[in-house]
């Protein structure tokens, strides 16, 4: 790999993908620029804000901190992978119905962090929700409506 691109083989949102990338490229840039999946956002680029959160091999990660080389063979879920046949997932519908988004920039990361939490803990308490989302920062709405959305989704409802 001396100063050269590598072939990166991934499964992204259920589809096998192969791209030529530099090994130290950030997974975030690979997703947005090479795989044409710009739903994942760059906020701080330092692992502080969570806007770039994706689920990699079943674990929530900050894609700005993952070098491409470490995503070799990985299975990824991004915000583009949650809807099925044009239908939003229950969690996404709950975010919409509970007004869990304002400018929307943090939302892909918030939704993926919530998805990760609900997979680990189907009925989280409010402190568990706040801990699960502690690495995701929203600068518009505050967090109450986002917490409402996660609680609603966990209860199988859309509305708070």
């Amino acid at each position: 790999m001396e100063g050269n691109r590598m072939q990166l083989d991934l499964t992204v949102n259920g589809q096998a993908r192969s791209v030529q990338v530099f090994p130290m490229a950030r997974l975030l840039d690979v997703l947005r620029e090479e795989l044409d999946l710009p739903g994942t956002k760059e906020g701080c680029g330092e692992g502080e804000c969570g806007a770039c959160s994706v689920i990699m091999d079943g674990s929530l990660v900050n894609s700005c901190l993952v070098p491409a080389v470490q995503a070799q063979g990985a299975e990824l879920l991004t915000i583009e992978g949650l809807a099925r046949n044009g239908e939003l997932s229950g969690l996404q519908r709950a975010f919409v119905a509970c007004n869990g988004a304002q400018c929307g920039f943090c939302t892909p990361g918030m939704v993926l962090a919530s998805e990760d939490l609900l997979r680990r803990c189907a009925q989280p308490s409010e402190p568990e929700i706040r801990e699960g989302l502690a690495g995701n920062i929203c600068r518009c709405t505050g967090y109450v409506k986002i917490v409402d959305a996660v609680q609603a989704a966990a209860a199988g409802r859309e509305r708070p």
Partner: protein
Amino acid sequence: MRGDVPECTVQVPATLREALETLAREPGRWRPLAGGTDLMVPFAAGRLADSHFLSLQRLDALRAIEPDDAGITFGALVTYTDLRRHPYVQRHLPNLVQSAKVTGAVAIQNRGTLGGNLVNGSPAADSPPSLLAYGAQVELTGLGGARWVPYEAFHTGYKRTVLAPDELLTRIRVPQPAAGFHFYRKVGTRAAQAVSKVCLALYAQVEAGSVRECRIGLGSVAPVPLRARSAEAVLRGQPLDALPLAGARAALMADISPIDDIRSTARYRRMVAGNVLVQALMEFVTSMNGCG
């Protein structure tokens, strides 16, 4: 993204031996890369001088967690998530669970590794105070073999360690503490994600109403994570019903050498380190009285 991505070379060794051979061939050239949560930040900002990286992702042997009768051994690639979920750690090493919980948030805990946290050498890291309070040791491995070093002797100065350029930190050993009191507190700007202003871990044991053992680890109050040896000496052997709180606090001031930086001031850190120590000791006394 200002890091020079195309100029970088990455090796992904399949075995520890292969990794060590690469390090030994060109000592100092290859920067070991574990979970990336520390290194990717300065790298992306163009503030990292390294262009050759040794990605340790395939060294699965370093992900092992091995408890035994006398303690537990962690591979260097064990993540904070692994740590906080492990039943042995939850049962015997509560300070380490607390350290893992306050390191970043979920996404950082899933990727950040214990070994990386130590080698990165930040005086503000969250796990070192707990490892110091528990008397941990670290295994440093080169082609010639492995050596165990008390973790307390690992850091030699700001971001400097005893790790040789041809060595990797491979394992961390924590002896099982006898029944006792455990305390951990990180003071930062907010509960999640923040880098600490002051961090203190304490482990203490009582025998016949007196302090038998007391170990205090501190972060963010000196160029390195350190033991509060003077404060410990003041406390050891003292009766629990007359613990010298003021004396311990005064001794702590001699142990630490905080500075003003972007996160806090030396004055605040001195004040809060002292307050947190007194809080720890008061909780210690209360918990031991509660146990009869």
